[in-house]
């Protein structure tokens, strides 16, 4: 939020006296990385109960990675998004029209999310295609919007969860991956490698925890609902491909199928594009949505009987990703 010492400030403002309060910063994936920190505190025995909160103000300066001088003067996120979009379209022969279904679906889903920052009427594919051009590869409606927002989740040990709920959701798997900090060192402009690595590791951890011995893993076919980091239109197909939910180059076609079948399996709340992207709060909002989905409390946007949920949250053009597997 542009202020240091946020966690103690928040604790004081909320009238809490926690034993410890610290801040986690990791650009757009601060939220899930804070969840990982909370999980680690509980798993190590350092804490029994951790409140993880993310908050952001609309004009936060934190959305630009000033350190990355390899971006020259092109530091605003629309530039990396344009180069990824260009790279993806060229690698797979995908068109801007193919990608227009992503925001169309996002806003359609956001229509049943009362917490979303969304327009009165969901834009159509034609509205997306006709929205203002920011670059040769990006239209205004392809972009998630920075906004003011907040989200919190409570993490407890299994021993004390009963104090707060009869129906806890378990964080069964965590995966993290960093390929670089600078955009110019992105391994490939048509794939988000960190997403694949982080989700694979989270599914593997959840699988072994699930009673499977020696390398047992869950697969995406076990995942009933997923929140993925669609910061820009092209991110959704790239992440669907990284997760193995689509063959390389087929992600936009899978987005279209999800749209045409009104599926709520991916980004039921509208994703970042449909809901708004309050950076530090986004990963927490994603995890909160998966918990609601697992509890079957996502009114009007409920996925079909989900048992296993996945969160994918990333930062700085997908140079790093964090993934969570959550089960009820």
């Amino acid at each position, binding site marked *: 939020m542009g202020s240091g010492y946020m966690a103690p400030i928040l604790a004081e403002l909320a009238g809490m006296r926690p034993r410890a309060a610290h801040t986690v910063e990791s650009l757009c994936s601060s939220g899930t990385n804070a969840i990982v920190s909370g999980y680690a505190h509980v798993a190590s025995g350092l804490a029994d109960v951790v409140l993880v909160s993310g908050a952001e103000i609309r004009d936060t300066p934190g959305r630009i990675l000033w350190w990355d001088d*390899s*971006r020259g003067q092109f530091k605003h996120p*629309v530039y990396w998004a*344009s*180069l990824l979009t260009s790279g993806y379209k060229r690698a797979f022969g995908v068109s801007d029209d193919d990608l227009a279904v992503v925001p169309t679906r996002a806003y359609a889903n956001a229509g049943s999310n009362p917490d979303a920052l969304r327009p009165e009427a969901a834009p159509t594919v034609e509205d997306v295609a006709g929205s203002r051009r920011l*670059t*040769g590869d*990006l239209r205004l409606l392809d972009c998630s919007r920075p906004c003011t927002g907040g989200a919190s989740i409570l993490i407890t040990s299994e021993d004390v969860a009963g104090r707060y709920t009869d129906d806890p959701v378990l964080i069964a798997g965590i995966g993290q991956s960093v390929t670089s900090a*600078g955009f110019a060192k992105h391994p490939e402009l048509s794939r988000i490698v960190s997403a694949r690595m982080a989700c694979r590791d989270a599914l593997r951890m959840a699988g072994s925890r699930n009673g499977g011995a020696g390398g047992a893993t869950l697969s995406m076919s076990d995942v009933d609902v997923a929140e993925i980091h669609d910061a820009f239109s092209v991110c959704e197909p790239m992440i669907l491909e990284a997760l193995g939910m689509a063959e390389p180059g087929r992600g936009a076609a899978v987005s279209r199928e999800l749209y045409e079948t009104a599926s709520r399996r991916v980004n039921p709340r509208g994703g970042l594009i449909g809901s708004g992207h309050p950076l530090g709060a986004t990963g927490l909002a994603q995890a909160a949505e998966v918990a609601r989905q697992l509890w079957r409390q996502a009114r009007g946007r409920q996925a079909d009987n989900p048992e296993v949920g996945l969160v994918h949250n990333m930062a700085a053009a997908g140079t790093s990703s964090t993934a969570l597997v959550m089960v009820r």
Partner: protein
Amino acid sequence: MNPVLSEFEQAIGRGLFRVPECIECGAAVWPPSEFCSVCLGGVRLGTRYGDGDGKMLRGRIVECSMEIPAGRLAGGSAKSPFFCLVAFECGIRLIARFVAPTPPAPGDLVALSSCGMSPNGSGYAFEVSTPDAPEDPAGPANM
């Protein structure tokens, strides 16, 4: 500010690009830093480009796009709307404005034609253009 960075910025402020190189292993260190990211060796500024002695920092376009209108967010006089990720032969990759009569395409050979501090205060600014010299017969490199 560390001495390497300070020297690098003094040079770039005068339009000179000096490749930060590891004293131990020779790797190009980019963005400039006090230590090599390969071996943690010390860094010095190596070859100078842009002082008219004929040396060209050459590379190839990895990917490109154009901003509409030119200069809307990236600032500056915006001579051209095109920007591209370039992989230079020295191992450095960066995003530069592309200034040439014809639009860029991935794989095109380019050379660093100017560098300086960004007029919008966002750090360095680079321009590449199509080099006058004949193409390297070895063909595409460092993609």
